[in-house]
């Protein structure tokens, strides 16, 4: 039991923090967020070639770093802290999906390409309003030599810029996982304009799209979708902790400068206690984040159960979702009038916090998942 970073992990954290401080300032974010892709290509190239974060979870056999969830959340926490406009979370999510079918040739090819910086996005739901299996609206029909895909996936993280897509589709009462490329006939890929401009999302529409049998990565993938989404919640949790931390840091910096009634407003107890509550939420979520990342790594190794992973993800999503929203919202309040202007960054964190909180299920919905585990089964487990 050593619930702190190893030296290597500390180095990774420090290097991520330093790199992003140098290369991902507020100007970079603001420039990217009004661009078509929402991505800063130069920054992304630099990350892919110098930092190699896109390969962090890709096994070494396919050119990756072969690291784990703990290392992933270390990087994503820093990404969330500066709102870095790069599609790393989307890529890591796809790596997680592909690792469930790693025996498949195509999966290996895609993992190799992901490690090289190609963007593969996971298109799994139309979220009306379900994020899991019940939300899958793409339907696959088997043909003689492959499949036909029809339907729509929304909220595809960084999807509009993807080089390839992993599409989850209804198939024979289960779910199939398919690879589709944007240039295929019948594929329409567009950017979804969203309230939070720092985490762009794509809309994928499929109309009679023919996919070869080889493009089918799995035919009974339903059981894996839950696990991938729970692991994704851990990734989002990392960004949320970063977002909450940044909201706290920026607010403390602002109130320490601002003078009213002849005192910096940081000297007022009402302000100090709000900041203390923010820190309490940041640190509490961070503790659950590291726990969940450890469980995630065990789940990837097969030493943690589905229930353990579900529980860890739900606890984190509830806690970090609330923490990020609370800290960013309180941050606006502590900024006072300037907090609601476009000029200050705190509003970017606020919109980002809201977007992340809703993604894959709100905190109250996560608590209901836990309640089911705690209260409804015969033995305290889910029915």
């Amino acid at each position: 039991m050593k619930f702190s970073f190893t030296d290597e992990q500390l180095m990774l954290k420090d290097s991520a923090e330093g790199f992003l401080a140098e290369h991902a300032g507020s100007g970079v974010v603001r420039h990217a967020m009004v661009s078509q892709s929402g991505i800063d290509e130069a920054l992304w190239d630099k990350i892919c070639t110098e930092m190699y974060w896109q390969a962090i979870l890709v096994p070494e056999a396919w050119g990756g770093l072969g690291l784990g969830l703990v290392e992933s959340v270390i990087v994503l926490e820093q990404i969330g802290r500066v709102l870095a406009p790069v599609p790393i979370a989307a890529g890591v999510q796809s790596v997680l999906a592909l690792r469930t079918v790693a025996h498949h040739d195509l999966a290996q090819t895609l993992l190799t390409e992901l490690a090289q910086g190609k963007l593969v996005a996971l298109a799994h739901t139309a979220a009306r309003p379900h994020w899991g299996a019940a939300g899958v609206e793409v339907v696959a029909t088997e043909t003689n030599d492959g499949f036909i895909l029809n339907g729509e996936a929304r909220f595809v993280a960084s999807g509009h810029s993807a080089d390839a897509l992993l599409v989850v589709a209804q198939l024979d009462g289960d779910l199939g996982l398919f690879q589709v490329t944007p240039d295929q006939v019948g594929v329409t890929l567009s950017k979804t304009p969203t309230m939070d401009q720092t985490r762009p999302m794509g809309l994928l529409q499929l109309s009679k799209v023919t996919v070869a049998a080889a493009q089918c990565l799995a035919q009974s993938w339903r059981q894996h979708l839950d696990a991938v989404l729970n692991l994704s919640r851990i990734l989002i949790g990392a960004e949320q902790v970063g977002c909450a931390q940044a909201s706290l840091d920026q607010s403390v910096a602002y109130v320490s400068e601002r003078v009213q009634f002849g005192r910096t407003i940081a000297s007022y107890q009402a302000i100090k206690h709000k900041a203390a509550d923010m820190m309490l939420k940041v640190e509490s979520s961070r503790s659950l984040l590291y726990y969940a990342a450890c469980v995630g790594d065990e789940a990837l190794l097969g030493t943690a159960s589905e229930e353990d992973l579900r529980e860890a993800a739900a606890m984190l999503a509830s806690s970090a979702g609330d923490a990020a929203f609370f800290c960013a919202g309180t941050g606006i309040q502590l900024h006072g009038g300037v907090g609601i202007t476009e000029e200050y960054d705190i509003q970017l964190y606020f919109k980002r916090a809201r977007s992340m909180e809703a993604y894959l299920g709100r905190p109250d919905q996560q608590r209901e998942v836990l309640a089911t585990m705690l209260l409804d089964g015969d033995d305290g487990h889910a029915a």
Partner: protein
Amino acid sequence: MQLRFTEADERFRGEVSDWLSDNLAGDFSSIRHRGGPGDEHVFVEERKAWEKCLAEGGWTCIGWPEAWGGKDATIEQQVIFNEEYARAGGPGRVGHIGETLTGPTLLAFGSEAQKQRYLPGIRAGKELWCQGYSEPGAGSDLSAVRTRAILDESTQSWRITGQKVWTSLAHESDFVFVLARTDPAQKAHKGLGFFLVPMNQPGVTIRPITQLTGTAEFNEVFFDEAICGKDDIVGEPGAGWKVAMGLLGFERGVSTLGQQMLFQTELDEVIRIARENGSSKNPALRQRIAEAHIGLRTLRYNSLRMLSGGDDGSLSREAMIYKLCWSSWHRNLGKLAMDVLGPEAELLESEPYNLGRLQSLFLFTRADTIYGGTNQIQRNIIAERALGMPREPRGES
């Protein structure tokens, strides 16, 4: 204690509602429900025309004395007018600063000449006003204003220099009232004056402040030797603080009931969506919707107590909690709206950044707990004035 309005009041309600349904029609239909907080920058020309139409019908400034064109309307009648106005979808009033702030201030503190010069323009809906109180360094702490006013005896005019901020509708207004320092040797509440200044002059520059919504309701207003007449000061030089504080008192009042009707429209919309998209089955959202309903009704009865003069004949307690109550309620409604919308909450109406009505509500309500005295300042006021607890010490600046 009587909950219902009298029959006479109900007849008055009928008059208002009839007039509105006859007049808020035709060309004016397009501005129904528009121009409220967070939406003040839209349909300004149409709303100016509407203000004049309202004035011609005799429906501006109804609480003013008849001598100045008002109806001497009772509190109940003013409540009713505001309720019916909101119920009819009456647009955000471009004349409301003049009617509810400048007018009452002049009636209480102004000279006869000032009244004669300014009240008729407000009453007719022809001269619009904006406010010049806050400054970048004087937000919660209004007494820190640094804008200077110097009397130029040669031209018999005041020359005003400084910067004001959070001024809504500045570029549409004819006049601004400005709190400025007449005596630079004095600090804090002392040595201030309250000035009536024309906006359309070279010394006044306006810069919109873009908000997190992407729109710009508020402005910065820069005064660079801006001019007003020697007599355009309300009260004596040095007595500006008293006038300004009197004016803040007028902000509370019957318009709160109209505001609540807008809130009700918003809550109804949230409930409609919840019923439509199935969010109404989510237990956590059910609790929050019920809380929102309770909260809005609480605002109503808080207001009615306040307007009825309070238990002990004073406005104090209910009035002091009102801002904190409504701003927190409204902010929570904004978040509730997003959660009820579910995943759809994230989708814009269109690019580049066109927010839907509830998204706007969500983002803009973050301002509610800040402007006009932050929630923190409100709690200070309650603790110090209503509960008699010690005042916050000032720093040494």
